[in-house]
């Protein structure tokens, strides 16, 4: 932590200049140490098991329609907005994801399908833990894959904003020995009261406390609070006409964009979204799932628009703990399944393609005769992004116990 003290002292000098725009020579200095041009990652965890089969629809599969008489998304019809949006003649996007189609056509968005975890658990909470820890089947793992990725590529002058979870708590994905902070609301991330007394007083108290957990967290917190004084979150305006959806998801994406642009050293950002567990009345073209997807599509598109050229350095990836049953259930919903789909987006991606080793959907091709089978381990996808985009080749440290084999990579990251 001594090393980041140097950074703290340096940047507290900048902080004293107040919230006005930084003079250009200082901006350059900040940029050098905070890595504009450095590769970045945004991770979205969709909690509750998103129904991948209704999100990226295998409309060429007859069984898809046989298994889902009421909630299936109709095959693409030209001019129809109530049908799947054709991606490649076999797969189509749920119509609520229309904003993502231009990104797909531009080569900035890819889909990975029939991907997931080898562990067969259908418990949300175990599956989420396994996916976040990066060690499916092993309950004892206490840190997350993303934190280990940071550990295996340590930063000399690490900014307190190097790894940020945008939400009320630090997810398992980012827990571990590498510093990471949780920011529920950028606008509220400051201390009340006369700074010398409250900020100064609290900081001093927590810096010396024997309570190790508190001490560690507080150190990062106060550094971050101090740094954040350089920007004015209340006044942020998205660029290029980007319009984020209302609600927590849109707001978090906007804050991620804002923090990236502030050049305060943000490298990996995490956010999650909930409500994907549609056991009842999932809906097809309209309904619960469609509503969630509307936000998802609009959010990702807005983020791309807002970041503009900066997307060249950023890879966005989404995941969910497992998929849902191939058949709909008796309540026009779906139950817990197995394989799912992931979205991967950004400038460094070979987009415009659905990457998959498609297992098929006949009864005997389904996992345990009920779910889409997993043919690509999610750790291959993340491993490719971490090694080829972030440049961290120590994958065995990130995903211990997994055969991290570059030959298994799907080739979706431009090296």
């Amino acid at each position, binding site marked *: 932590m001594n090393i980041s003290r140097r950074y703290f002292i340096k940047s507290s000098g900048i902080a004293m200049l107040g919230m006005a725009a930084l003079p250009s020579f200082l901006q350059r200095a900040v940029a050098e140490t905070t890595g504009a041009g450095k590769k970045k990652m945004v991770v979205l965890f969709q909690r509750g098991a998103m129904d991948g089969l209704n999100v990226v629809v295998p409309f060429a599969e007859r069984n898809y329609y046989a298994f889902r008489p009421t909630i299936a998304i109709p095959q693409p019809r030209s001019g129809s907005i109530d049908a799947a949006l054709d991606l490649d003649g076999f797969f189509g996007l749920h119509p609520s994801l229309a904003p993502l189609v231009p990104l797909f056509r531009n080569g900035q968005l890819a889909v990975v399908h029939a991907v997931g975890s080898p562990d067969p658990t259908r418990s949300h909470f175990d599956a989420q833990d396994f996916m976040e820890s990066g060690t499916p089947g092993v309950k004892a793992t206490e840190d997350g894959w993303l934190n280990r990725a940071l550990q295996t590529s340590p930063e000399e002058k690490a900014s307190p904003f190097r790894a940020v979870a945008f939400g009320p708590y630090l997810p398992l994905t980012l827990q571990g020995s590498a510093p990471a902070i949780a920011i529920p609301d950028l606008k509220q991330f400051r*201390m*009340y009261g006369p700074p010398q007394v409250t900020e100064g007083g609290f900081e001093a108290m927590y810096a010396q406390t024997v309570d190790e957990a*508190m001490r560690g967290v507080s150190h990062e*917190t106060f550094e971050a609070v101090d740094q954040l004084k350089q920007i004015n979150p209340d006044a942020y305006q998205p660029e290029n006409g980007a319009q984020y959806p209302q609600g927590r998801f849109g707001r978090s994406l906007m804050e991620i964009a804002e923090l990236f642009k502030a050049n305060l050293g943000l490298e990996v950002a995490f956010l999650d979204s909930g*409500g994907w567990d549609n056991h009842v009345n999932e809906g097809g073209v309209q309904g619960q799932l469609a509503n969630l997807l509307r936000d998802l599509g609009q959010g990702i598109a807005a983020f791309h628009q807002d970041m503009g050229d900066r997307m060249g350095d950023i890879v966005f990836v989404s995941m969910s703990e497992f998929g849902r049953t191939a058949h709909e259930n008796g*309540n026009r919903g779906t139950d817990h399944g197995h394989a799912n789909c992931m979205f991967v987006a950004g400038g460094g991606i070979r987009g415009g393609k659905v990457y998959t080793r498609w297992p098929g959907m006949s009864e005997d091709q389904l996992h345990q005769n009920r779910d889409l089978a997993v043919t690509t381990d999610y750790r291959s996808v993340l491993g490719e992004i971490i090694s080829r985009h972030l440049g961290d080749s120590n994958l065995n440290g990130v995903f211990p116990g997994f055969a991290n084999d570059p030959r298994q990579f799907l080739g979706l990251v431009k090296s």
Partner: protein
Amino acid sequence: MGLAKWIDEQLNPQSIDDSALDKRLERYSTLGMSSPQLLNDFPPPAQAVKKEGVTKDEYKQQMQQQRQESVATMLPTGDENFDRANVELARMVGPNRIVAELAMAKMDRAIYSNRQLEAVMEDFWFNHFNVFANKGADRWLVTSYVRDTIRPHTMGKFSDLLLATAKSPAMLFYLDNWLSADPAAVKRMQAMRAMRRDRYYARFGVMPPGVGMQGANGRPKQRQDRGLNENYGREVMELHTVGVDAGYTQRDVIAMAECLTGWTIRGPRKDAEFFFNDRIHAEGKEVVMGRTFHYGGMKDGEKALEMLASDPHTARHISTELARHFVSDNPPPALVDRMAQEFESSGGDIRAVLHTMIYSPEFWSKDAYRAKVKTPFELVASTARALNADVEVTLPLVQWVGRMGEPLFQCQPPTGYSDESEIWVNSGALLNRLNFAFAFGTDHMWGAEVNLKSMFGADGATDPNVALSQALGLFLGGQVTPGTKQTLEARLSDPRILQARLDDPVKHVNEGLIAGLVLGAPEFQRR
């Protein structure tokens, strides 16, 4: 009163007089209402629109007006803090008020109840049998759930509590069991309907009324066909009883769900009461975790739940959770063993298990002291108690708990809020805790009044060192590390701590700042 006697009393809450709290709770008119009454008085927008024959926009306007009128009738008390809180409260009209009152009552209880252990157990069991108040009809069902299902069973037999939750409309709705039906039974009903249609047609030459009608969306009206829903069947085993590592399989989950088919709600948005529909109950024999259930009717579900309640895995699961809640994130195995033993031998008697826990050496050991980080709810309540605050309106406190990450009754997944400390110790949460301590200590908490002068005494008003030592004594029981004490003492020389006012040359201690600092200390974050 000696400690043993106090513990004994707490374990028998009926023996404690709580009339002062009951008086406070009278202001929340929804607390005593039945679910049908709540549905009637605070109708869901869709129903209100129909009932009053207005459009959605007109309804919205009506609510706006109601809100404004409610605010206008608030008499200003002259105290800015109270007035602002009262306005916030007055703005809560419509169904939002129901859960708001529940949350406020919970906060009142935490701060002012004499039956402290019972209040803690109520919170524990609600979290264990979590229901998300914002899911559809649950908003109107949670009041009864807390009052009629959870509270009466907090210290009795676990199996009684389990059965009560299984039959509660709130849980049946939340985990979808009210829609679960035996697929074979559904097929039979469909066949019957088809047969009746054919007979009618054969007799009268036309389709019976109702067939082929179109619904509001232009599509043919269909009776919502049901099927098996395994959501509750899974969670009742994974979360409520035996736990995820008990060795049950997917087949057990399905069998459990079959046992519970027919456990449904009559009119979730009207009568809102439990109702066993034997027509959709699975008649065959079901095997759950090696035991066969073929009693017929409701007995299938009841016997299966009883089995789960008395399974040794459940004893261990519940004991571990209790020890984790009261003692430490990693409870000593010996303690858990002892508690699980008592659970089994007493037939799941919660009071007996608590007794065993409290009278265990591990409960009083040094390792257990301040081993747990206070949850946001615990922090807010303990701060109010430490400050001896006079809280007229608890809504702002409830909102702070939400800001810190634990919005009451609004935990979406059935796991409930985590009982492990790391979850609550992260940057955003820490900042909120410190800001909260500062706001409350300096008497800026809306709806509450804090009188530090009387707590710190005359000397505390003029000598910052006295004020500090009073604060440390009152808030931290004098238990503070020398390091923390020193850093606090170092702040005392700041001009803002001891300041002169324009009209008064004598310097006064800014007691609020000192209180805020002590309440934000690392030691106060733990219990």
